[in-house]
């Protein structure tokens, strides 16, 4: 059931991203709701679920864009690795780490997708794209994560026990 909910949410995020991009632009870029959703899900629900949800979200994103199928699956995969780092060092709230992961995932996504597009023969203006797309997306996506994070958190009613540092067994 939880995966069905995740797939439905990822589909909605993919459709929102494709249809709203002409209307919602901040600093010249549109928010990537699929990336934001995948990163928030990974941070809230943990790496195990992210291993399934992140590739599915990437697949749904590719199916609604002109990118080759597999590009977003590959470019979103760093989110799962970033979620592992989060689990190695738990902190009280997922919110701020989620924003950091969204920003880092935006950078990784941009670089990986430009690499793939260059490899398949597209003309990618790296300098302009890094300056005008990558850098703004590192700022804009975390801004919109403030909207996406609460519903994802709401879908996960049982927060993990708070702890301080690696190996702490103290539950508050």
């Amino acid at each position, binding site marked *: 059931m939880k995966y069905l909910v995740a797939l439905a949410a990822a589909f909605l995020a993919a459709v929102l991203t494709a249809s709203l991009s002409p209307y919602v632009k901040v600093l010249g870029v549109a928010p990537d709701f699929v990336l934001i959703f995948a990163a928030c899900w990974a941070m809230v629900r943990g790496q195990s679920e992210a291993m399934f949800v992140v590739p599915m979200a990437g697949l749904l994103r590719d199916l609604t864009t002109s990118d080759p199928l597999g590009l977003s699956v590959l470019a979103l*995969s760093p989110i*799962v690795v970033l979620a592992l780092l989060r689990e190695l060092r738990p902190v009280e709230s997922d919110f701020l780490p989620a924003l950091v992961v969204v920003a880092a995932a935006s950078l990784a996504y941009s670089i990986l997708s430009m690499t793939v597009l260059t490899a398949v023969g597209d003309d990618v203006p790296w300098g302009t794209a890094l300056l005008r797309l990558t850098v703004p997306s590192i700022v804009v996506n975390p801004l919109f994560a403030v909207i996406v994070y609460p519903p994802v958190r709401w879908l996960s009613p049982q927060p993990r026990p708070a702890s301080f540092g690696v190996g702490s067994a103290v539950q508050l």
Partner: protein
Amino acid sequence: MRTLWWTLAIVGMSLISIVLSEHRTFDPLQNISLTIAAPVENGIRDLANPASDFFQGIFNRGDIVRENERLRREMERLQTQLAAGEDASRRVRELEDALGFQNSHPDDQLVAADVIAQDPSGLKRALAINRGSKDGLDEGMVVLSRDGSLVGTVSLVYDDFAWLRLISDPNSAVNIAVLPEGGKNPAARGIATGDLRSGVTLEMLPTQTEINPGDLVTTSGLGGNYPRALLLGTIKTVEDEPQAPSKRAVLQPAADVSALETVIVVTSFKPARLAAP
């Protein structure tokens, strides 16, 4: 260890998938996904339009935006007529002894299509439309705005849908002619290329020809991939550096390519890359 194996598996599957996708293996799957997503996307766009007007300003700003859009379209229509007229008179002068030349605008067959999505990555300037190979579309076909100016070409075709590459896409290159006002000077030929920064840049323009902001820019017809005399827009700015081998200019597209809702695909014109044996 589990993460490592997962990463290797995902990277491997993604790369295989990308290669297969480049060979058009997943076209039916993408056609189905767009069939499912299109109604939802249309609904969201219908909702987003008024919301966008609202958030662009306060009070009656939406009316101003719509009025501006109407005037822009009217100007585009008039510029299209002007471009066609200027080009026609130029051609009469150039080709008056060539009695057998073919009209570059035969009775065109057109297919109107609604825009259903825009590529969100920002690396491309691409639109999805609700017409595909079943409607006679093929890759490379020319796409016009509803007022007749060139906006791009068909880049990917599925059964019921297609993706358009806009003239502002970095992979787009169109042979163009700049028509100086008054028609006294000869047309300057060049190439219009997409640019993420400025939209559309005109390159390889001859240094000896005078080019001014406001001059009309049309397709030149060279190369055979576009019909002749399709309006692209007007010259916005000119960069004329003394030592440069050619001039550069920035185009002001006639159509607002970022806000297209309906486009027209010319199915009767076969681009050279499609007509080649």
